[in-house]
């Protein structure tokens, strides 16, 4: 065979290094990231970064300061352009994928010129759904979130926790395939954090929506996670992926269970190893 190839006259000349073949992730992979490269101010933040994110799981992203946790999920969600690489959702591109995103700063994520209920319905209206469909979905959402506050109010008339609840409802309204959460609790008080954490778990158990959660609080990160994704300092690589298999619903008792404590301890050890490296 080799001889034949060499005998071809004026055969094609490959000047470029051929693109590495796309290697799909293991079964059950939802988001496949291959060769992701992102430079910031001339320095590599991500270089040839590969990652498989499983379907119908909650993955918590945790890592040292400045390693680009939020940048990672923002690149996956298409909010920050990537320099090169490929990100596929079940083999589809982002354009063909419905996603939801919850920002840390709910104040600047909601539209204060719309009533809260219209904010939540906004992604449904973008999809061009009929009024009846929108109303039906809104009723569903209100029931499943057990909303106690008046959705006819404007977002700025609500408390921080209520605003973040509303913005999670908005993200979930169109039944997204993936839900991104960028430090959703860090602007909330403890009471509200507990409430929203439970709501998220409830929604996840009901719908199985794949979730990507960035957190700077290790307890929070582990508590909700099926997988804890630990990142290194920049240039960022995967330090370790830990599976956390405790039963759902997890409760306040989970926080003191041996498996939870062990998982948290292990994560912390890896984290510290990476910080000191």
């Amino acid at each position, binding site marked *: 065979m080799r001889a034949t190839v060499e005998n071809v006259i004026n055969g094609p000349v490959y000047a470029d290094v051929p693109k590495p073949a796309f290697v799909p992730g293991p079964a059950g992979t939802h988001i496949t990231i291959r060769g992701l490269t992102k430079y910031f101010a001339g320095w590599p933040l991500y270089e040839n970064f590969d990652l498989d994110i499983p379907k119908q799981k909650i993955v918590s992203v945790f890592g040292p300061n400045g390693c680009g946790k939020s940048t990672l999920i923002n690149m996956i*969600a298409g909010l920050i352009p990537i320099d090169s690489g490929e990100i596929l959702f079940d083999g589809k591109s982002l354009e063909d994928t419905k996603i939801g995103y919850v920002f840390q700063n709910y104040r600047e*994520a909601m539209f204060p*010129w719309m009533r809260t209920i219209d904010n939540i319905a906004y*992604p449904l209206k973008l*999809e061009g759904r009929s009024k009846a469909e929108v109303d039906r979905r809104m009723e569903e959402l209100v029931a499943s979130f057990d909303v106690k506050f008046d959705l006819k109010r*404007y977002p700025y008339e609500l408390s921080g926790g209520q605003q973040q609840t509303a913005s999670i409802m908005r993200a979930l309204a169109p039944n997204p395939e993936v839900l991104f959460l960028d430090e959703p609790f860090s602007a909330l008080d403890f009471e509200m954090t507990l409430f929203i954490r439970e709501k998220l778990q409830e929604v996840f158990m009901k719908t199985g929506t794949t979730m990507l959660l960035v957190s700077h609080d290790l307890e929070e990160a582990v508590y909700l996670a099926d997988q804890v994704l630990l990142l290194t300092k920049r240039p960022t690589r995967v330090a370790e992926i830990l599976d956390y298999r405790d039963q759902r619903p997890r409760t306040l008792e989970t926080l003191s269970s041996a498996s939870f404590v062990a998982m948290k301890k292990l994560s912390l050890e890896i984290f510290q190893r990476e910080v000191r490296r």
Partner: protein
Amino acid sequence: MSTPSSAAPWSPPAANAAASAPPRESHWVKALPFIGPVVLFIVWDLVVRFGLIKAILLPMPGATLQTLLSGLAGGALLGDFAVTVWRTLQAFLIAAVVGVPLGVLLGSNERAYRSVEFLIDFFRSTPSSALIPLFLMIFGVSDVNKVAIAAFGALLIVVFNSAYGVMNARKQRVMAAKVMGASRWQIFRDVLVWESLQPTFVGLRSAVSMALVIVIVAEMFIGSDSGLGHRIINSQQVMNVKDMYASIIAAGALGYALNILFLVAERRIVHWSGR
């Protein structure tokens, strides 16, 4: 350390604080804004009464106010007042109708704005009154001229503020719309236009003040036979000081009223501003 009362379940700090009487705002606090004008009035009265300024240059305040009120209650002053209001509104409307869409469009295309930025900044910094002779050449001594130059000055302010309103739109709101799958046009319609509303109102408010200033100046110096500016300069030349001061106060009241009107409108329409 206080002993924790373990019996009662935890509950958020109740609204006990609110139950105690809210701090009373005494009446004189509400009267504070009136102190300035009243003091001015008294000083004005004393200065004239004791002859520190001759009554031929400064009339008594009471007499001036009387001239103002009788003038506005159907006297000749009312006609000039109405003419000035009408010209200012015309100029303002032209500036708003042209300026807001133009500013929003320029703002949503930053390259387009950068290419005209110098012109806008230059003419915005040029005193519009310096352009009066130029406008005289174009429009002649006419009513159109006064409205045109006022509209020009006001327009630049509106364009500038609306454009920056769009350019300074909260990035995260734009991203939120984008991540929900909004198209560029939908982001423009549902986010950028709304984000620019508050700065646009700031622009409109400055623009109406600017329009009034230029209209008054134009009425003074571009051969005019009506309007507050005309009335002020006319009564000054015949030393009818009572009428002159009444006209000045009328012009001031007009400017103040327009400002308040826009503030109220802004608070109504841009209800989320500052929250």
